[in-house]
């Protein structure tokens, strides 16, 4: 695009009193921005009118020196065709530095540098052009799994107008819902057992013209990317889909593993809750005079499933009601650790008590089950009475076993394996592979593996609090019990939400913009392939598995899989990966645009490469709260710390910058990185830069990575002060002035 630059400087919020605007106008002009216009309050209607008039006159690349880009966003947006770059003269200049005449010179240099940095960025960036697939994007949605979640996902998407393919491995739809006799109480007054409603649900699915059902099929292969998946079924069909919902449900925890603790397998009358459901459905509950349910059979147990399966308490209450309804005189015991009946289902617990079910709270130890000629005795601690009780003459013992997701577990090698000694890396990779499951649901033809990456316990999510639908494979969403243990009613909601996420993914693929977390972003990484050395770093390090490889190890990008974090750009040693508005060259040039004073001026320069999602808002917050720090600091916001290319460190040090801080978000098991492992990658990469520093004869103390998020706001001034002291003790960068 032909750029017509314009620059505006705001004097509001104390900026006008703190800075010399003649000087800033000079800097803007020297930086190629033309004659900067100053205004008392740029965000006022008059100020905005000033800008708008220039935009109407053709200005399309605007540098606005005012407040942080995080505020007044609506005001300073002038349509998709106008590039806007904000220099933070308020939060990152005036708010965070000492006031007064004495500090004026350093403050002025800070402001001037921010204008140079922003001007450089504006000069280096282009308007993004949305990516378009070769064929028009496919909007059909593939749903894998025909249980309650899959059926509801299919129906929800179809009702919103989407074409749906529903694939089920069994010869009938319904999944576990088909095995159930009844549902527990789900609606007011939460006391009555309810029909499963399966027949009606299946009828609706089969009667919906938008849904095509493939029973007796599994997914043999999933190739492609959002908007353009090609899915091969075991039955031979090939389908084109825009997005995928994996609703493959759960598997009961194998009861054979409870043979020692709970005598499973020793008698046909020691059964699991699934078997109990089958008996109830078969009407085979006659003649039961005494039944015991043992909760957490293999759940909440470090030797089996450490987590709580969330449904077993309610399942046992329901099954206790089956027994009571068949024989109101029957003695029914529920031996539990904690009764977990959340929300309105507390009433189900009360109802079971009203029906005469007896509850005994046990400790961590499992009860002892003994068989006395077909009648069982269960001996258990009763922690409420601080005693041991023996329940005799039991006809049936039901083990409330938990649920495992029907999803293969993926264990990834630690990131330190990247770039380390090849033999050691191979060993770690092999070790991780050995701990991973070998089977697959989707059989993804992805370079990083055929399965969805998993967190703990084989659940394929990535941000299970704030963004529960996000897997690490774009356009593929998990729904129902494969995502998290949940009840039928919750699985229905979950499936409905997943259907919307899938529809969004196809919409985004068609329009060429990103999905979460950079929703709407139209930029995407472009590869200058002539210079690629087939090092595989980008294909290995992409957190979303967006890049495939050909047989010669050339990267094959899939832009509709991409989340636009720039991790590939940070990984590439040849610097061949760029976005239209974000590139190695651009950030490098921004760093080099900082004016570095001579050594004898004793004014060090430190840059902070800061994650724009967590660190940058934290910096704004600290500044607004009145924190002050060194005026020698220059912040450069980044999409993700994982996009830091090592060449920027070299660029900075060779241009005389004395120190480099990297502010990323929390890494590790409880990571907060919206791009999963960007922060972690940056940390690993930085641990390997000593080589670069040695080559330049520089101290490794000059580069440091810090975790900064909303929880660390109050620590920011201290971290900066301490780093400045380190830099002072290390001394000036010897490259100054070269």
């Amino acid at each position, binding site marked *: 695009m032909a750029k017509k630059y314009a620059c505006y400087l705001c004097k509001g919020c104390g900026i006008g009193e703190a800075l010399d605007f003649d000087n800033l106008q000079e800097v803007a002009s020297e930086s190629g921005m033309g004659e900067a216009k100053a205004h008392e309050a740029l965000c006022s209607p008059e100020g905005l009118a000033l800008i708008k008039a220039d935009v109407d006159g053709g200005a399309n690349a605007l540098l606005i020196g005012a407040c942080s880009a995080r505020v007044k966003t609506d005001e300073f947006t002038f349509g998709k065709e106008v590039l806007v770059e904000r220099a933070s003269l308020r939060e990152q200049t005036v708010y965070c530095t000492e006031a007064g005449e004495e500090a004026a010179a350093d403050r002025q240099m800070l402001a001037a540098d921010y204008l140079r940095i922003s001007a450089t960025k504006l000069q280096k960036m282009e308007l993004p052009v949305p990516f378009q697939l070769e064929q028009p994007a496919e909007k059909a949605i593939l749903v894998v799994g025909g249980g309650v979640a899959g059926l509801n996902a299919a129906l929800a998407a179809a009702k919103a107008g989407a074409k749906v393919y529903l694939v089920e491995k069994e010869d009938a739809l319904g999944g576990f819902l088909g095995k159930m006799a009844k549902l527990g109480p789900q609606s007011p007054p939460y006391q009555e057992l309810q029909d499963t409603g399966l027949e009606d649900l299946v009828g609706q699915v089969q009667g919906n013209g938008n849904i095509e059902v493939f029973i007796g099929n599994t997914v043999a292969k999933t190739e492609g990317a959002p908007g353009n998946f090609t899915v091969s079924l075991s039955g031979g069909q090939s389908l084109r889909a825009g997005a995928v919902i994996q609703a493959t449900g759960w598997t009961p925890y194998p009861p054979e593993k409870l043979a020692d603790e709970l005598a499973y397998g020793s008698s046909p009358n020691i059964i699991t809750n699934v078997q109990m459901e089958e008996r109830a459905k078969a009407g085979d509950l006659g003649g039961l005079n005494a039944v015991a349910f043992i909760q957490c059979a293999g759940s909440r147990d470090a030797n089996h499933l450490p987590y709580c399966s969330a449904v077993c308490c309610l399942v046992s209450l329901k099954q206790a009601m089956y027994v009571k309804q068949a024989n109101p005189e029957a003695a029914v015991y529920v031996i539990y650790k904690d009764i977990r009946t959340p929300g309105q289902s507390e009433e189900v617990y009360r109802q079971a008590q009203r029906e005469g079910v007896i509850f005994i709270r046990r400790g961590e130890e499992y009860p002892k089950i003994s068989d006395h000629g077909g009648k069982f005795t269960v001996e258990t601690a009763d922690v409420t009475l601080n005693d041991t009780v023996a329940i005799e003459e039991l006809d049936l013992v039901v083990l409330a076993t938990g649920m495992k997701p029907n999803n293969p577990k993926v264990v990834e090698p630690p990131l330190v394996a990247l770039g380390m000694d090849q033999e050691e890396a191979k060993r770690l990779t092999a070790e991780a592979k050995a701990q991973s499951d070998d089977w697959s649901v989707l059989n993804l033809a992805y370079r990083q593996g055929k399965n969805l990456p998993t967190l703990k316990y084989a659940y394929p999510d990535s941000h299970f609090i704030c963004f529960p639908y996000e897997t690490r494979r774009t356009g593929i969403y998990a729904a129902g019990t494969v995502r998290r243990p949940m009840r039928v009613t919750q699985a229905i909601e979950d499936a409905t939400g997943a259907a919307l996420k899938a529809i969004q993914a196809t919409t985004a693929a068609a329009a060429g913009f990103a999905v979460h977390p950079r929703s709407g972003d139209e930029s995407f990484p472009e590869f200058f392939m002539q210079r690629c050395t087939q090092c595989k770093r980008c294909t290995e390090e992409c957190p979303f598995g967006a890049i495939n490889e050909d047989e010669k190890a050339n990267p094959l990008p899939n832009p509709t899989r991409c989340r636009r974090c720039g991790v590939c750009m940070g990984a590439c040693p040849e610097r061949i990966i760029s976005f239209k508005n974000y590139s190695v060259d651009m950030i490098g040039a921004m760093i080099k645009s900082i004016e570095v004073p001579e050594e004898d001026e004793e004014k060090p320069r430190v840059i902070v490469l800061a994650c724009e999602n967590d660190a940058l808002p934290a910096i704004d917050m600290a500044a607004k709260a009145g924190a002050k720090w060194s005026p020698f600091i220059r912040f450069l916001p980044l999409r993700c710390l994982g996009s830091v290319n090592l060449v920027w460190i070299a660029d900075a040090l060779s241009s005389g910058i004395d120190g480099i801080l990297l502010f990323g978000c929390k890494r590790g098991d*409880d990571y907060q990185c919206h791009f999963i492992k960007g922060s972690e990658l940056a940390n690993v990469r930085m641990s390997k830069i000593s080589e670069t520093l040695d080559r330049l004869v520089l101290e490794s103390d000059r580069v440091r990575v810090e975790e900064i998020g909303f929880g660390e706001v109050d620590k920011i001034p201290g971290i900066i002060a301490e780093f400045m002291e380190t830099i002072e003790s290390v001394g000036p960068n010897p490259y100054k002035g070269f």
Partner: protein
Amino acid sequence: MGQAILVVGGGMSGVSAALEAAEAGYNVVLVEKNPYLGGRVAQLHQYFPKLCPPYCGLEINFKRIKNNPRIQVLTMAEVTGIEGAPGAYKVAVKQAPRYVNDKCTACGLCGQAVEATVSNPFNYGLDQIKAAYLPHEMAFPYRFVIDPSIAGGPEGEKAKAACPYGAVDLEDQGAELTVEAGAVIWAAGWTPYDASKVEYYNFGASPNLITNVQMERLAAKGGPTSGKIQRPGDGKEPKKVAFIQCAGSRDVNHLPFCSTICCLASLKQATYVRAQLPEAEVTIYFIDIRAMDRNEDFYTKVKADEKVKFVKSKIGLIQPNEAGNLVLEGENTASGERFKAEHDLVVLATGMQPNTALNKIPAEVAYDEYGFVQAAEGIIGAGTVRRPSEVHVSVQDGTAAALKAIQLVAGR
């Protein structure tokens, strides 16, 4: 593309519903009663089980809103009437005066000029705030509010005189508008159950008897103590902290249902205390610990801390003593004997009451006996107005509600 979707409530469920619908290409009007978005989660110090700051996710969501022209946000607004039928509603919205217009730069001069203070709702009344204030440090929209108590008086004039941008509008009368929408998503959230209704806990009798939502603010950096956990009575560090589970929940005289989150909230708050005050002892009095699904791992972690004790007992009486401490009385279930225990800070784990139990939707909508909204076409409940739930369920529910709304408005 089709008609607009009206979302009522700008908390986690409502924000999710609004964003997910807008990102699928639909126009959304988001109505929020507070002067800021984020709802109850904005007032939390950390989320369980990751102990991460809620603003990490909220920041991304607010960025999504800022970048999406399809979402119109109305703060300080409430729905006063709904007419019409699924597919074609006319919704009356009343917006309270903020007395600050969009020229506000959040520079803070009005707050400096004003001397009057009001009880700080964001900190659940634990401190006072200037009557011209930014609702909290991360407020979105990032704009000041003038309390109605000063708008008509000299303090209001001070605020106006101090503002260089003409942003203080003391004549602001608010607004009444009509929104046409094809579907309404009701995500009005919850209110902590009023602890004073549980008479035998004597809430209000001692400043050192607080609720779990207040505890969040005591631990939060932006809270009344800048994040230091102190006894509100004397500012001292507590040494023996008690959490009373099911304070008014699972109780047919109060909230008969289980509020679902209070167990995890107390486990989480126990970690706040233990991280800050290594000498402090924590006792959690409970009926059942309900740490569902992988939250169990968090329970396991907290249980491993020797200074966190779990006592299965329903506390029957709480009374302050002369030392400013609180004496709990309960029954030892094993021996049947009553016991007394003295603690210097007591946290009532009060539950969540759906806001639809307190303020009904102005339309024909079915509720259960607790006031939770039942499933229906057209006016779609989402989040904690449907059932007590934690954050991820609210997000899930908001997303599902968005699709149900889209099914109604698509193609219209």
